[in-house]
């Protein structure tokens, strides 16, 4: 059974690699390796400024009153905001029993639609394969993507990010009967993460030297854990909480060993949309919608932390 499974897995992995090779190969390229050229509009990305997003300008326009000629006006004219989402990572994004997209990420998307149209329902959810989260924003297939995307310098080369809307961190999920206590106890053990994710990169860099196993999606990892093919799943604590809800005989253990600041993914060519989104994110923190959304979806992670403090650049 194991060899056959390995075969099925490698087929899946191959699919991922092929797909990834087309669009996001540069995601693994360090930012310092960028070819010299005309001076970029923004300063070079580094650990200090990676989270700095374009500052909102002025107060939010009223819904239905988007500035003339802006990206938001174009979206308003179209009649709906097209948002790229994942759909198998509860509690961030999944489909409820009526097949409606729900989750912490989905709330962000609906609030953005509400800010443009005055109606949170004016949003077209475009489910995306994980590997296509960034290429679809670049190609303009979607206006923006809210899909548990961690802001990193390599990705900033390809796309723009909003300010941080949630600070997740990587942890591990293990069988609750096992003796594993965290990433440090998993040296030499098989630990699974999604191909092309920052989680997999962090696993490869982990000091305890676990054996990283890359699968097409995070839920594939939960499946492998249930089938006894891997010893642990490692990804953002948000997603792990959703996995634990699907399998009560698992446990999220150990401390966070990475920071995963989530940002809304936006095309580099629409800076006005970035500023608008940042204004909406700030507003929903200020008026308590952020907290309400946390209480509804992320409560199992513990008492609500302070909302993220946005960092801006001009």
């Amino acid at each position: 059974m194991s060899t056959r499974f390995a075969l099925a897995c490698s087929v899946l992995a191959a699919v991922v690699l092929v797909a990834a090779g087309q669009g996001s190969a540069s995601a693994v390229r360090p930012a310092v390796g960028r070819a010299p050229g005309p001076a970029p509009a923004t300063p070079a990305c580094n650990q200090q400024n990676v989270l700095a997003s374009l500052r909102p300008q002025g107060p939010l326009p009223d819904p239905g009153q988007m500035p003339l000629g802006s990206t938001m006006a174009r979206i308003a004219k179209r009649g709906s905001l097209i948002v790229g989402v994942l759909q198998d990572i509860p509690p961030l994004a999944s489909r409820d029993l009526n097949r409606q997209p729900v989750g912490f990420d989905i709330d962000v998307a609906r609030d953005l639609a509400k800010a443009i149209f005055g109606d949170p329902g004016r949003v077209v959810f475009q489910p995306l394969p994980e590997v296509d989260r960034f290429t679809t924003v670049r190609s303009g297939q979607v206006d923006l993507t809210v899909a548990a995307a961690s802001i990193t310098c390599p990705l900033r080369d390809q796309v723009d990010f909003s300010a941080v809307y949630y600070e997740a961190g990587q942890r591990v999920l293990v069988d609750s009967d096992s003796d594993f206590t965290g990433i440090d106890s998993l040296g030499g053990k098989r630990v699974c993460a999604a191909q092309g994710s920052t989680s997999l990169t962090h696993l490869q860099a982990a000091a305890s030297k676990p054996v990283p196993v890359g699968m097409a999606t995070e839920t594939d990892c939960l499946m492998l854990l249930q089938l006894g093919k891997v010893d642990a799943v490692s990804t953002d604590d948000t997603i792990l909480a959703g996995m634990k809800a699907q399998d009560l005989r698992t446990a999220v253990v150990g401390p966070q060993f990475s920071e995963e600041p989530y940002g809304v993914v936006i095309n580099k060519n629409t800076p006005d949309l970035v500023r608008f989104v940042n204004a909406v994110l700030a507003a929903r923190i200020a008026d308590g919608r952020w907290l309400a959304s946390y209480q509804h979806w992320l409560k199992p992670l513990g008492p609500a932390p302070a909302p993220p403090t946005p960092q801006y650049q001009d």
Partner: protein
Amino acid sequence: MPPRQQAVEPSPTPSFQVFARIRRSDWDTTPGWLRVAQLLLVLGILLAGGVAAYDTNARVNTTGDIAGSLEPLNGTVSTLYRSLADADATVAKEYLSAGMQPNETLIPYGDDVHTAATSLALAGTQAGAEPATAKLIADITSQLPEYTGLVERARANNRQNFAVGASYLRSASALMQNTILPETAKLQQRQAARLGDAYQQAGSVPFVALAFCLLSLAGLFWAQVFVFRRTHRVFNVGLVLASVAVLTGLLWWTVAGVASARSLTRALGHSRSVSDALAPAQIDALNARALESLELVDRDAPSLEAYFDNRMRLLAGNNGALDTAERFATDQKGKALVQTAVEAARGYATAHAGVEQLDGDGKYLEAVDAAVHTTAAMAFNRLGAALQAAVDYEHGAFTTDIERAQGRLDDLPIGTVVLTLVAMTAVAWGFQRRLEEYR
């Protein structure tokens, strides 16, 4: 070495002298020659009849094998292949429609698995002692529970609306499409090869038997000339009767053999139309259908659209399965049925593009509805029905032709034996009458 050679050399001469003595005293008279001719001819006809009877019998047996065991096994393997692919397509559709129309597709999936398991057991007994076939059957048998296990986990998770179900479903489908179905395809190719060999054997020209028959005829002709020269009687009733018997046999043989071979060739055409073209077409269609559903179920995984396109190309593209089926089709009805299937495939591809379009526009619910209940579902059902109609037609034509081929050969073995006995008796009797004149 030289001395030894000298010692051996004289030995052959005495035996020749014995032969010469016998020949001089007994053979070299008209009755002696008549006796020799009688013996040679009776033996010759016996040999020719024996070879012919053996050949005919082998032919009848092989044709019987085709109709009675090889083709049923072929059918069993086709059923297995189709039920496995159908299970894959059905379970993905079921997963997608869960909650929309409860349990609507539970029964077809259960039936598919039941059929597959039964077919495997049946194929095991039908395959007999063929080791390569038995190994493939054992492999598939051992993988089926693994597949159904993954499917059950997918379904159990889907009942709870747990996202991990999609991973189980995709793994099950990958196991089916990448491992089990290719092995089943191998099994089917193996069967097709065995069947092809059998057809070749049953339809080959029986040169050896024909040569013996013609030799007997020549012998009879020579005997009549000889008898005429020695006894100055124009016709020997026995020899004429024997000639008529052998000629009748030869004619019967040729006509029945050619007609039977022709029916066999037609039967083979129908059989290969199913095994080489229409059955693969059904599998490609079912695989495409499974991928269509899977794509809507498991959104976070990379797109499967390229695989779908590939399946449709294998089905209806240039030199695809339906192209091959059209080449195999021998009559108007068969061609028309394939043409209907080609159009149905086109219709399904269009309907699927509609599903993609809906999905691309973010209308997920409409896309699912189109895939599971309306446009694409109906187009696929039409395609499935069109393919099944073509398979049924070709299979019916096969049955007719193989029965015809068998019917042509039915009385031949016993007829050959009777004619041989007639010819032998007639020769013996004919010569005996001449010989009696010398008493």
